[in-house]
Structures are given as structure tokens and as C-alpha cells.
């Protein structure tokens, strides 16, 4: 009963702009789920608000389109109540690094077993193209009245500082690699963060597909475009933490940060960091609540056949009882 790609599709009309990078991400997610044979009911895709936020409606799994900036706490709440769910969080760069930055930072240090996919298009798409927190200082995209006045946040270095245990950068027109990253992210034990270079042809006329593909810089010899993005795995890069000791972590942190900062003419994409030496939040909870993984909150029976509560609080009442 292998899943087909069509099993992951809905009949909802997709109203993204033609050529939008979001389509690549959608395809990659659907392909990942199909390849992983995750039946629709076992998966919940949470999203923020923005063009990207509409994505759950196009995927035939539980789809929770939440509030602007709040996708992570929603997703975390659902996952912690039922750790058997596969939980994917998806949202824009404004959603994640602007209004949602506080959650983004504080989710990292929890390491709940979810996969967070962030669409980096440099703009607030759905509100008509204002600068997002990832747009570089001084850039003037189509819809801005002047050059961008803020420095950019780098999603990769921020994720590193926040404690994510899986950090990757994908590119929405490299669907093959992206699909693999998402599969790995879902399989990763802990919080996976995948930042996706997602061109917005409507508002970001600078970081376009053509720009990423190097259409503006042709090899003088061959006349071929020299793409700016390149796959890091093809350079033999090892993203994994093996021992987890301080030195290794420190060195890897440096490496990841400098990969993250490469956003000019050579942009690495792929898995930068993967660390499974750190326990997940669920595992930490299980140390406090031995029954947690077996009977998590959503799976506990709370009442008997005619609604009688199953919790027995008599000992607690006795503590307060003064007789």
C-alpha cells in the first residue's frame, strides 16, 4: 500500500503566483511523505501566515494553518500531547524570524522532535512585498520605496545559536535535494530546521531563480550560467556530530556559521548540521513522567464508562484534609 504522490494532494485551488518558489517546497514535502509512506492521518502540517502559510491546504494530511508567527508553539503543543504524530511546521521568513523570532529561538533549546521548514524569500509576500528580516541591508526590491534599512538575520547562524540539532539550507528549485533534506529532517530525532531559499518572482526581483541559477554570470568559456547555489554534500562535507564533546561542537558551530554566512556568489545548500547526541524534549519529559511515551496526554483515558473521572485525587485531598 505504498502511497502515491496524488494521495498527498487536495483539490483546493492553489493560488500562489505563477513561478513562485513555494511550489517546489510543496512538491518536495509531498514527495517526502509519499516516499516515507506516511499515511495522511499520521501527519500534521502546521503553518504560519503568509503565502507560504497556505501550504497545508494543498497537502492531504491534517493541516493546521495557524497564526502569524505562532506555528512553532502550536506544532510543539500538538506533538507533546501526542508524540506519535509526525509534525511538520512550515512558515515564512517574516513569520519565523520577525514576529515569530522569540518562538524560533526558544524552540531550539527544547529540541522537540519536529521538522520546521522556513521559506526564505526576503519579503513579506502576502502583504505585498515589504522587506522581511532576511533581506540584506541596502537592497531595494521592487516593492520597496527605498533601499532596505535593516541588516539581515541569517537563519542558519540564528538556528545554531538557538540550539536546533539539525540545520539545513535548501533551495526550492532543487526539489530533489530538498526532498531528501525534508525526509532527513522528519527522521531526525529532535528539532530540525530547514531554511529554504524560495524565490518570490512577484516581489523579490533580486534573489530570483535566475540569480540563484547564475544567469547573470555566464562562464566566458562555455557561455553557460554559473549557478550560485551548490550542493554541499557533493563537496564531501560531513554534517554530523559524532562524540558531542565541547571541542567537536565548537568546531562544528564555527563551520556551520561560516556556511550560513555564505550567501554571495557561492551559496552552499544541503545539510549543515546534525546532532543526535542531545536528548529530545520528549525523552526529557519521559524522565519525569515514566508513562509519558506510552500513554501521552492525548492518549490517556480520562473517564470511565459513564463519564466518571479516572484520576484518583484522594491522596491529594487527604493532604489538605484537616481532621
Amino acid at each position, binding site marked *: 500500500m505504498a502511497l502515491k504522490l496524488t494521495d498527498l494532494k487536495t483539490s483546493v485551488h492553489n493560488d500562489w503566483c505563477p513561478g513562485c518558489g513555494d511550489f517546489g517546497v510543496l512538491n518536495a514535502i509531498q514527495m517526502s511523505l509519499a516516499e516515507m509512506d506516511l499515511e495522511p492521518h499520521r501527519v500534521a502540517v502546521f503553518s504560519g501566515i503568509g503565502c507560504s502559510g497556505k501550504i497545508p491546504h494543498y497537502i492531504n494530511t491534517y493541516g493546521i494553518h495557524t*497564526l502569524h508567527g*505562532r506555528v512553532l*508553539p502550536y506544532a510543539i503543543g500538538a506533538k507533546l500531547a501526542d508524540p506519535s504524530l509526525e509534525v511538520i511546521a512550515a512558515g515564512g521568513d517574516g513569520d519565523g524570524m520577525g514576529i515569530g523570532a522569540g518562538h524560533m529561538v526558544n524552540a531550539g533549546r527544547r529540541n522537540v522532535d519536529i521538522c520546521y521548514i522556513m521559506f526564505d524569500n526576503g519579503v513579506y509576500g502576502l502583504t505585498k512585498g515589504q522587506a522581511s528580516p532576511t533581506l540584506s541591508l541596502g537592497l531595494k526590491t521592487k516593492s520597496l520605496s527605498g533601499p532596505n534599512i535593516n541588516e539581515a538575520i541569517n537563519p542558519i547562524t540564528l538556528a545554531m545559536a538557538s540550539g536546533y540539532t539539525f540545520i539545513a539550507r535548501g533551495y526550492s528549485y532543487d526539489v530533489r535535494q530538498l526532498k531528501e533534506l525534508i525526509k532527513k529532517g522528519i527522521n531526525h530525532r529532535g528539532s530540525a530546521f530547514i531554511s529554504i531559499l524560495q524565490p518570490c518572482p512577484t516581489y523579490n526581483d533580486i534573489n530570483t531563480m535566475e540569480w540563484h541559477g547564475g544567469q547573470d554570470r555566464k562562464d566566458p568559456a562555455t557561455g553557460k550560467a554559473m549557478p550560485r547555489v551548490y550542493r554541499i554534500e557533493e563537496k564531501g562535507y560531513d554534517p554530523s556530530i559524532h562524540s558531542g564533546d565541547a571541542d567537536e561542537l565548537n568546531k562544528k558551530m564555527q563551520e556551520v556559521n561560516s556556511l550560513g554566512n555564505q550567501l554571495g556568489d557561492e551559496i552552499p545548500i544541503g545539510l549543515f548540521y546534525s546532532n543526535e547526541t542531545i536528548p529530545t524534549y520528549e525523552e526529557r519529559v519521559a524522565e519525569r513522567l515514566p508513562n509519558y511515551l506510552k500513554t501521552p496526554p492525548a492518549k490517556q483515558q480520562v473517564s*470511565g464508562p459513564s463519564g466518571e473521572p479516572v484520576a484518583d485525587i484522594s491522596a491529594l*485531598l487527604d493532604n489538605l484534609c484537616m481532621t
Partner: protein
Amino acid sequence: MTNNQLTWMIGGSQGTGVDSSALLFGRACTLGGLYGYGNREYYSNIKGEHSYFMVRVHQKIIHSPLSKPDLLATFDAETVIRHALSVNVDGGIIYNSELSNVKLTDIPTLEHRVLEDLVTYLDNNKLEHSVNGILEASRRNGVHIYAIPYGDLLKEAASTLGEPKLSNLTRMMNTMAVAASFGLLEFDLSVLDSAISRTFHGKSKIIQLNMTVGKSAYDYVKGKYASGFQYKLKKVQTEEKRVFLQGNQATALGKLVGGCRVQTYYPISPASDESDYLEANQILKINPRRLSDSSNVEKTTYLEKNGGSVLVLQTEDETAAITAAIGAALSGARSSTSTSGPGFCLMVEGMGWAGINEVPVVITYYQRGGPSTGMPTRQEQGDLRFALHAGQGEFPRIILASGDQRECFYDAVHSFNYAERYQLPVIHLIDKTLANSTATYPMFDLSGIRIDRGAITNGENLNNLSSGDKTYKRFLFTEDGISPRTLLGTKGGVFWNTGDEHDEYGHITEDPVVRVRMMDKRMKKLETIDHEVPIQERLTLHGNEESDVTIVSWGSPKGAIIDAMDALNDENIHVNFLQIRMINPLPSENIISVLSRAKKTIGIEMNYSAQLAGWIRESTGIAIDHHVVKYNGRPISQDEVCDSIKKLVKYDAPKRLVLTHGT
């Protein structure tokens, strides 16, 4: 001689154990067969500011403070200075004889206004600006002053016990103050001893220390001031099992029994005590006879063996708290979050999302002094209208307001039942007084408690639901507005949610026709609730139905009103009291029928603008005749209610009466 009725007060610097000694006093009284009611007043501060606790004891059940103490137990100077002048005539003050000469200006924590008022008073009475001066003033007022040489007694006890360090343990003075009070009251020392044992459960060394210093203070007072004090407490024999607990504990207990399995929170006064209590009791005993999920034998036996649990999640802010609770509710856990005003501000958007997506989530809302940060540890009921109207647009919500600790417990259970049955956010309004005051009740009756999880569907049901159409519709249009829901992970039950207006599947729509149907469906639930929820869960008419005067109130003033009604009955003033417990949907029909019978109506609320009265007028057209309001951050007392009612019943009274008692 007044027997088994007393208002006792103790005070001291925050962080020096005042609460513990007051609870000790209350527990002892409860153990002695009396009922207690204790109110705690403290600053938004960790150490050093003045805190005090008033404990009222009585032979019958009581739910409110009185304005003035009969006996003030002190061991520091500030407590004498702040409270001595408020002690009742014929009452008493216990003080540390070493502190007589402390000057008012030696107390840096005294507010400028308080200092000025006291100085004026002392000057008018030609008294010195010191503890001595204040005590002298009290004496002139007819109050008995009982000096105790705490230091000497401690030293003695230290040497008796061979514990020289003991004499430095000023914390011991707390117990001594309680014991000295017991001495004056001629109360049985053994009840104090058993309260000490229960309080320091298992720590035998500490128990022994406390008992020893306690006995020394008790004996000292009995010896020195034998029979001088007119108030007496006597042990009462009773078979009744009783609990002595705070509102935040009662609420937490209600949540546990009510099936709450995820609680999210961000620390805030006075809400986080509840989460702390839940976390401290996160592993739950399970009653095996009630486990019946035959579909999963392995799981049930597992639960039986290992107990249940509640996951308490401390989030990075309240926005995360409410949204994580909603996420957990979607997965199927009964979920709640607790907060107070500033935190609720940050939950509004999430609550609206739960509204449009019909997610059952409970918000326990502990009101405190506002606006803004306001008075974080003081009493107010200023958030009713905020709770009622928070959020853009219109969606149904239920608002419950508990009037005492017992109601906190049952309403916590109701909250989850309503949330799941009607698939909406429920706000459970509590206030600082309820949360932090402690009272004695007959043991709660658990036998009637039922859990109603509403329309949750899976398996066969789901197939039926999906048969007409191809697939399951989360927001199926129905007569009563309620659509069977699935939990995340249910096979065949895939649905979508969005904050946008949506179609029956949960997909975004901007179609004007579907929009109106969806709005109507959601709002319809308020009517369904109005029809279905038993009226006794929504309001209570206390007292004689036929009274000419009807008091209308909600929340913690209930205690003072009920107690005042008793007292007024003795003076032949008969009023009844309409307590509103379900603020939304408001039981308007019943309110109209009660209020239209009354010749005079009096609203009592702990806020500036009489918020419930406004809501009643808006909903029923009935303007309440008189408003008694209080917003100085201190709880309302029985005598304040009595006085106000007398004024309003007997004389041509003002429309609005502002109460200001409290320090």
C-alpha cells in the same frame, strides 16, 4: 466572652514565614473542629516588604474576612505600626517587647502617605512616633497589649534543647506568635502540635524545635496574662471530613480530576501557583475500576500500573502558552493554560483562533489589580469586560466565574466539559482573593462528577459521517452548531484548520454565502448552551426568593455577601443575592425574572465601573439601582457589605458607593 469566633492577624517582612504561620494557625483551628478563612496580603516583592495574613475562625462555615482583627500577633515593629490602630476595641496585640522604641522613620518600607497619616494621628494625640506611641494609642482605644520577650524565650529554648543556633532563628518567632495567640485564646495546644506535625511532615527535628518554642510562648502567655483576654477558642468535636485549601489548589485539583492532561503556562502572579501545584503533582493515581478502554487492554493496564500524568509546559511567553495548549487540544488532550491580565493580553489572538476553529481549550484567568501591570498581587475584578469582548470579530466563548474555593474546583471540571461539548474556548475567571485565600470546607463530594467529552468521532462513526459526501467534514453544518470532531491522528478523519473563514472541510473561503452560514453555525452554539446547561450551573439565588432587596454579584465577593446576609438577618434585614456564575452566555431570562421581582437592586463588584452591571443592563435592559464598588486592591469584608447594605436599604442612598477599607 466571645467563644469560637475570632479574627486573627499576623504580619511581617516578606520572606520571613508569615504565610506559613498563618496557615499553621488556620490548620490548627480546622483540626480543632473550627472553620477558618484566611486572606493573604503581600507586595509584588520577594523579600523585605510588609506582608500580612488575616485568619478568621468560626464555628460555622465562613468565606470572608472582617475589616478589623480581634487579635494582632506581631514580632516585628512594622506590623505593629501598620495594624495596631485597626484592632477592635477589647481586642489584643501581641508584640515583641524588645521593639518598643523602634521609630516610625526606622521603617523604610512604610509608604510616604502611610507615614504622614500616622504622624498626624500621633501628633494629634501627643504621642511619640514609635512602636510605643502606637501601642499607647491602641491601649487608649481599649485594646489589650501583650508584650512577649521573644528573644529571651528563644534563648531559653535554645539552651533547653542544646541548640545554641536556635536563638538566631527569627523564623521561630512565627510559631511563637501563633502559640502565644493560642495561649491567650486558651486553645488546646495539642491542635497546634498536630498542625505542626502535618506542616513539617516527616522533618522530625524541625517539628520538635517548633513544638518546643511554641510551648514556651504558650506557657509564657498563659502564665503571665491568664484569662485576661475575652476571646476564647475551644476544640469542637466533629465527624465531618474537612479540607483547608486555597483557590489555586482547588482549581488545580478540579483540573486533575476533570481530565486536564496538558497545562501550559508562563509565570505570572497570582496564576502560576496553580501550575506549580500541578507540576508538583504531575503523576496521577488512577482509579483502576474506571478504566474501561477495552479497545486497548495493554494501555489501560499500563495506565493502571503507572498512573496518569499531566504535562506541565513552561513556555517562553503567553502567546506560546495558549497556542501550545490549542495544539495539544487538537491532538486530543484536555488542555488548559492559566494566566492573569498581562498574560491574557497576549493570548487574545490565539483564543480567537480557537474560536473560529472550534477548539476546546480552557483559559484560567486570575484577575488582579489593573490596569496594565497594576498591582500584581492585589485584588480586583476588573477584567470581566475584557474577557467578554477580547478578540476581533465575533465568536462564541463561555465565561465562568467562581465565587469560592469549592466552586473553583467544580467549575474547573465544568470548564473542560463545556469546552469539549461545545467546542470553544472557555474562560474560567478567578481573582487574586480566591486564588490566595485559604478556607475550610467539608470534604468535596466527588461522586457526582462526570466527564463529558462531547462529539469526538472515529472508526465507524466517521464512516457514517463521511458516507453522504466523499470525505469527513470537520465543520459540517448542523442544527445545533456542533459538528463531530476528530483528533489529530485519527484514520479517515483528516481535516484542516485556518484562522481564515473556512468551508466545511476547514479550507479557506471568502464566499459570502458560506461565510454567513459558518458565522451562524458558530454563533448558534451560544443558543445551544443557553438551552442545555442546567441553570444551577449558571446562577444561584441565595436567600429568600421573596426579598425586596436583591444583591447581584459575581466572583469572590460571594463570601462577604453570604456572610453579611447571615449577619443582617440577625438585625432583621433580609436580602437575597443573585450570584452569576456563567457570565457568557448570560442567563438573561432568569436574571430578568429575579431582578424584576426586587424593589431594590444592589450590585457589588470589585472594580471601578461595575462591569457586570453594565453587561446585565446591555443584555436585559435592567439597570441595577445601586453600585457598591471597591478598587483599592484589598478584598471586600463582611462588615463592609453589611454597612453598605444598611446604608442603601435604610437611607436615601447614593447610586454609587466606593468602599476603601484595607491596608
